[in-house]
């Protein structure tokens, strides 16, 4: 049900583009208006999201410590797993964001009879790394459509990505990698009973959407060649804010553009915000220096705690204290007289 709904949504988009561009010839709407609107939604939505998170304070320093704390000088603390300084936090975050450190820890538990076994399980990590890094490189590679002349590094990236010179045009490694990553992530959601059980349609939807995006892109490059000069004319027009719509670009290009538009517009309002959210995560982005540096909670800063004071307690248990020979604090009475 969830899978079908998500798939229908994505197929519906193809039909929509076919109707809009193929039948109704709304080139400007699909080539200019929708991309601009989507990009604006992305920017505004993302800023709104980040401001919204930032508006809520971090009342406590709740670092998840995954390694030895910094305590006695002769005990080596874990700089990456229990960072003691902001620089070490930076390293921990870098490893988390760039290398998916926590996913790399993943284990699998198996119950046989009444015995539990744990095995290393790095497939999820591998699938996630393949997918995310390929996506990132592909995005950067696309900058050559938005720049003139194309900067050297982007040209170089292009050359490296198509290094093996397979087929013509040369096959990009990242195209293969992202397909592999996506396929794994999708299959995992379908096949693994636990992950399947927790998946919503909104978990399948972005997967299908990105699948569509990648496949339409690859079809354009390797099979139904589109006129790259016209495409660049359009993209350069978009980026220089002088949009014009050249004729004769294939329908498939508009499908591709529509997919990316929907993806970026959907981004800030969905789980995809994890990309920026991870930077805000208080269990990861704070140092484990709680006893060394006081953390301030803004909503408690000028609110003193309410509790049973010693003197109130002493009054209550005076008899017991006296009979047990425990000292009575005379200061309690002094203070009373003074005040």
């Amino acid at each position, binding site marked *: 049900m969830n899978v079908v709904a998500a798939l229908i949504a994505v197929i519906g988009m193809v039909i929509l583009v076919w109707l809009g561009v193929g039948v109704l010839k709304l080139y400007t709407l699909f080539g200019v208006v929708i991309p601009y609107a989507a990009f604006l939604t992305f920017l505004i939505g993302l800023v709104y999201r980040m401001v919204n998170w930032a508006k809520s304070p971090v009342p406590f320093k709740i670092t998840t410590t995954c390694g030895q704390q910094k305590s006695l000088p002769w005990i080596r603390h874990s700089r990456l797993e229990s960072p003691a300084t902001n620089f070490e936090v930076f390293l921990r975050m870098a490893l988390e964001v760039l290398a998916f450190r926590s996913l790399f820890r993943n284990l699998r538990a198996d119950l046989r009879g009444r015995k539990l076994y744990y095995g290393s399980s790095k497939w999820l990590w591998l699938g996630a790394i393949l997918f995310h890094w390929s996506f990132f490189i592909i995005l950067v590679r696309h900058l050559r459509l938005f720049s003139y002349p194309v900067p050297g590094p982007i040209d170089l990236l292009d050359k490296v990505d198509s290094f093996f010179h397979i087929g013509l045009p040369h096959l990009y490694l990242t195209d293969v990698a992202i397909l592999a990553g996506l396929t794994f992530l999708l299959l995992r959601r379908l096949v693994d009973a636990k992950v399947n059980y927790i998946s919503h349609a909104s978990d399948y939807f972005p997967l299908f959407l990105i699948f569509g995006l990648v496949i339409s892109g690859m079809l354009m490059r390797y099979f139904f060649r589109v006129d790259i000069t016209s495409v660049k004319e359009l993209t350069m027009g978009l980026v220089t804010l002088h949009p014009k719509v050249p004729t004769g670009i294939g329908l498939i290009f508009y499908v591709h553009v529509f997919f990316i538009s929907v993806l970026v517009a959907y981004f800030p309002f969905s789980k995809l915000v994890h990309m920026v959210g991870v930077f805000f995560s208080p269990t990861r982005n704070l140092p484990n220096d*709680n006893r060394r540096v006081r953390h301030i909670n803004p909503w408690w800063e000028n609110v003193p705690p309410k509790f049973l004071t010693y003197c109130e307690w002493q009054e209550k248990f005076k008899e017991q204290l006296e009979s047990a020979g425990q000292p009575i604090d005379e200061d309690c009475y002094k203070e009373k007289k003074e005040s």
Partner: protein
Amino acid sequence: MALPKPDELLRDVNYDRMPAKHWMDTKPEFRPGAYCYAGKPSVVEELGLPFPREWQPHDEDWKLPPNWKEIVLNAIKDRAERFRSFKLFMDICVRCGACADKCHFFLGTGDPKNMPVLRAELLRSVVKGEFTRSGKLFGRLAGARKLTEDVIKEWFYYYYQCTECRRCSVFCPYGIDTAEITILAREILHEIGVNINWILEPVRNSAFIGNHIGLQPHTIQENIEFLLMDIEEITGLKIEVPINKKGAEILFVTPSADFFAEPGIYTFMGYVLLFHYLGLDYTISTYASEGGNFGFFTTHEMMRKLHAKIYHEAERLKVKWILGGECGHMWRVVHQYEDTMCGPAPSNLEVPKSPITGTVFEHAKSTKIVHICEFTADLIAHGKLQLDPSRNDNYVVTFHDSCNTSRGMGIFEEPRFILRHVVNNFYEMPENTIREKTFCCGSGSGLNTDEYMEIRMRGGFPRANAVEYVHEKYGVNMLACICAIDRAVLPPLMNYWVPEVQVCGVHELVGNALVIPGEKKRTTDLRFQPLKGVEEEENV
């Protein structure tokens, strides 16, 4: 209901078989052994918490206040405004499932709603369904639903089936911390009078008497005197424990279970022997007589109310710094909350400095509270303790990292360093079950009540399973830990799964090994068990 035998308990558990029904359509079953009793009206009332009334979770009607829904929705909004963690964790989960089989309750029950991702989703779905347009529009497709009374019952069942151990947050690629979600969910439930007695009664006792079971000042003293008599019988040493002594250098705060409950009392005897050996100028307090803090399992405000007494007492007694005993959640509170909620520390406190070694505990320079394992490890490293580990030769020891001190503090090496010096036989459990990947005892966060025994035995199963492994492989018969809840709940857990294994605190073993000037030749350990070799000698 009698507990099934260990071989039968997990018969129906299968991690790869999920219910046919969607999780939004299944309801928890409040059967004996699987839920905790509701807070007694008198206790709820005395604490000033809302809606005291007679009710039980197995009742059809929970007698919620008429405007319960409004209260809950406002509470959610309020928490989102005050806790970035909550807001963020509701937004960014991608349901990758890395956490799914990391939770001890999932591993022991196979219940999908014990997967941390679904535990969070129980609340997330309501946040989406009640507060977001897409959730209202797409409903279940977007993982959204409306808040109903059944949802409240489900929250109660599963947020009191999470021990806030944070194991899932180690594996989550975004560090989503279910403990944080559970803490806030419980806080929200308190606002409509949904609570459990096993947490609230200790909170009441701590707030108005001083400690969990409500030991009054003279009773604490009597208990300690009783333990000192045992010490005298074992070592021949006459020792005194200073109580409420003004001007002492150090205030020692430990969980109150160490005063009265086995095997915590042996740990307490260990502390006392160590302090005597050192000639330490310290005092305990019968007012701030609880290191543990069940307020942490209630609300942030309640945690603060209970914990504020420690600094208050340190100020009154004019001590220089505070030493904390072996306790799990006490140390999460001390390490991650104390300075923020009760600080800055009173001005009479100084940066802690060991009077024996001169070591300045720079890492605690703001809170001024040092963990006893840090203190003792420093002593051993400086060669200040004469130790005879052979006195622990009856024991083959392994070490259980407590959740809170592991993932909410990071104290891994200190207790191990001590253990390697006080025992001859020490073996680690498998690496995926210790340190930051350690498993909960299954009864943490205030769930250590007898009526909850079935779930406790299930939740503790992964821990027990790892102990069983080292028991079979190395003959381990002693499970050392640095947590009072562990000391209370691991014995029944071991008794159920691995009956040959006993439980102790690290400082009990220190107390056994410590060679104290003026003591008589010891023939038994602190449990009055004959030392290895002694019996044979006497028989010759």
